[in-house]
């Protein structure tokens, strides 16, 4: 498997650390009900098809990537820098 890091280019998956669902990006605001935290921390869909998850370019540039891929065909459809997303600020 190979992923394209927007900063480093296409690299072998051994350079990346897999973290999990993109849900981790949606951090509830302070004071949000506990259900919102439960959603973010524990509840996951398990799609046969397009999914978005987080990968860390651990032995590369240290960027966190949001990877869009297909769990059925294994196609990697897009990779983007987590840091470049809009609206991520606390």
């Amino acid at each position, binding site marked *: *498997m190979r992923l394209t890091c927007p900063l480093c280019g296409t690299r072998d998956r051994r350079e990346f650390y897999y973290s999990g669902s993109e849900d*981790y990006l949606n*951090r509830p605001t302070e004071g949000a009900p*506990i259900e919102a935290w439960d959603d973010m*921390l524990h509840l996951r869909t398990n799609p046969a098809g397009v999914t978005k998850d*987080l990968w860390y370019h651990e032995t590369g540039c240290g*960027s966190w990537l949001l990877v869009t891929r297909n769990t059925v065909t294994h196609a990697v459809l897009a990779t983007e820098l987590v840091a470049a997303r809009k609206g991520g*600020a606390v």
Partner: protein
Amino acid sequence: MRIAAKGLIDRTKPVSFTFDGKSYCGFHGDTLASALMANGVRLVGRSFKYHRPRGILTAGPEEPNAMVEVLDGASQSPNTRATVQEIYDGLAAQSQNRWPSLRYDLLSVNDLAAPFLSAGFYYKTFMWPRAFWEGLYEPLIRRAAGLGRLKPQNETASYEKAFAFCDLLVIGSGPAGLMAALTAARAGAHVILAEQDSVMGGHLLSDGGTLGMPWVDATLAELRALPNVRLMARTTVVGAYDQGTYAALERVGRHLPSAPHLPRECFWRIVAGQAILSTGALERPIAFENNDRPGIMLASAALTYLNRFGVVPGQKITLFANNDHARQAVRQLMAAGVQVAAILDSRADASTVDDCPVYLSAAVTDTQGRHGLTQISGTHAGGAFQIDTDCLLMSGGWNPLVNIACHQNARPTWREDIAAFVPHSGMVPGLTAAGSANGAFSTHAALREGADAAIAALTELGRSATAPDLPQAEDAPYRLQPLWAVPGKGRAWLDFANDVTVKDVKLAAQEGYTSVEHMKRYTTQGMAPDQGKNSNVAALAVLADATGRGIAETGTTTFRAPFTPVSIGALGAGGQGAGFAPQRYMTSDQASRDRGAPMVEAGLWYRPSYFPKPGETTWRQSCDREVLMVRSSVGVADVSTLGKIDIQGPDAARFLDFVYTNTFSTLPVGRVRYGLMLREDGFVLDDGTTARLGDTHYLMTTTTAAAGQVMRHLDFVHQAYCSDWQVRFISVTESWAQFAVAGPMAKMLLNALLDERIDDFPFMTYGEVSVEGVKARLFRISFSGEEGYEIAVPTAYGEALFRDLLAKAETLGGGAYGMEALNVMRIEKGFITHAEIHGRITAFDIGMAKMVASKKDCIGKAASQRPGLIGSEREQLVGLRPVTKTDIGAGAHLFNPGDKVERVNDQGYVTSVCWSPVLETYLGLAFLKDGRARHGQRVRLVDHMRKTDVLCEVTDPVFLDPEGAKLRA
């Protein structure tokens, strides 16, 4: 038997080798199979189940019969295909799966018992009585099972792994592959041409056709001269993986006598922009009664032995075929002077024009010859007949080698006109089949498809290319009439390697195993080392017939990597011994080893366990002495393995407030603070101290174990939640060597070394100092409970400073201390490590709930306060002290005295223990239900592993100096 002036072997280079202890001679360029054939050896193996005598069936890696053990120094490579193994001087091979000898094999009695050993025999026979299974049946079956044997010793041979990258990977170097490589190479693309054989050229080397060696040589010469082409012979592409990644196995040293540093094999990961599958096709056998005797082989194999190796497989040859193509073999054998007894053609309308008797509508019905073929029985339109013959060639048509295209679970398409499965586009993204792998069996068609596929691939890569002129080549039609099995009552083999017959497949269908996947598992067809390369299509054709379905409807089983067997040694290359994991050494490593310190692994780091003195015979003696030394004078320990993260920027303070539970924005410059870090789910991630070096500059310390995890976490928090904050951080763990100096004489030791004395340097202070002109960082922190400092210098000065510190410490009655003493002292002080914060522990559990600041948000704050993570039902950190002086161990569980020792009564568990030489007792840290409310009570400590059962008093986790008077001295 050799034929003069034929073959690509080098007759000026004789090679001697042994097979089953007997010496033979061959030539450079021979495989073991061709050399044995040249020496008249026909019997080379025994079949898996019935131990039937077997000869050579093929001339390639698909060989199901001729598998041998190659003895190579201390090791032994089983199931080596004699048709692939090249000979070299001194090669020693032996037959396998026979006892006492290949010719007289006692287990050939299985062949007589064959009526009882049909498909599903094991399932039907060994089911009852049930008690017999483990004691009797399994050991018996295991003894009889298996083919080649491994030596029981560890593998010592060397293997390698490597990565390669290219625009175009061409798999197979026959006419399609060569033409594809040439087209792409001329266009300037980076090309890798991988060929499983030792010589490039594919069937052009062996078919004796008009487009022969001159064109192959000229093409290879041109490719070899181009800098953008890499030719990889002896390299089998064994799997297709995601995003254009292919696995390949190169036989680097398998064809050579073993030599130091010569790897046997290299496992390649090849990343290709595009790939062309030009793997060719495999001729398929026909099933008829006793079709497995030595001397019966594929027609194309005979052609290969003739043209490639100058060997013929018999004196009087017969052909049994269902297509025109196979006639080439007998024509060329006749031209080479070999007698051909007859051609049996299964078709009614085939040509009879050949220089030997030709029988139409013919079939072989049986064969004779115990250790090698002597006679065949046949039928044709005119009736039954017998022919004396020592070699029967068979050809049931051709199967394109579609395997690689199917490795991502796509299924090939059935083509009725050629009665074969072919790949279609898109099965593996970026992979295109060409030539006979694509069902285009003529040389001309292969050349054209190779060129076309290369142009299409280059277009995908955004390059343009023009097709080279195609050379003149054979373009004869193939003309085949499917024939899978000759009807008959006897045993007709489909899968030679696993002894699966037509009857077995029919029986599977009859018993309800009508799915091809079920039939495979019930009969074991296709599950031998050859993975059914010779038999899969025929077996499913027989199944289709038995179940009244078409072949397309019946479908194939799943094709899985690897295409041919791969040594575990090659997959794990580089991972043996010290190669298993990187080793990280501290700057003090040699100095510690010089003092005889045994090293202990801490993650990838190696740290000294203790520093033995003369007369000390156990680690405990050294450890106790080191603890008392630190507590009474001064000790020095290398703590460089702790993670150090340099954090800078106007938002650095804000960032630390967000990742730590407690507040760092209020920390004055020049001060140090202990910090607790949570995961977002509320559990403790790590702890450590952070110093404020400047207004916008902090230095964070992590534990050794979690250094990488913390860095990853900080990167995530920053990039995901506050990427617009002005803060940057980097790991400086390896830039600084850091030493703990602890004990009542710590300051005295430092003052003896520092360029300027430190006098007023309170607890939790940071300052810049210098040692012999080298700038250093000094932190007043303590993990021992003593007056403690940590001094950090750039790594280059680490060893020198460590040796200086030790020399000065020894003059004060102090010295070095290791991990054991460090651990004892932190337990005496109730300081936690990852033995305590093991991932299921909250701030509340370790008594630090108040450290989660109420006035600000932080990672993990919300979840840490959810129901279930706080409250008296939680197991809380406590100290334990055995009531009697008894040894206790970590991992023990706690129970209320009087309760039955069983899971439901479990009150907690012990995480760390030590012998305290200061308090002269064993001490433990433990998590106990509602533990903070139970100080002074007694619990029962039960350790089933160490067989201990002792009463302990529950205490505060801080056993020594709870007020911290020494710490702050």
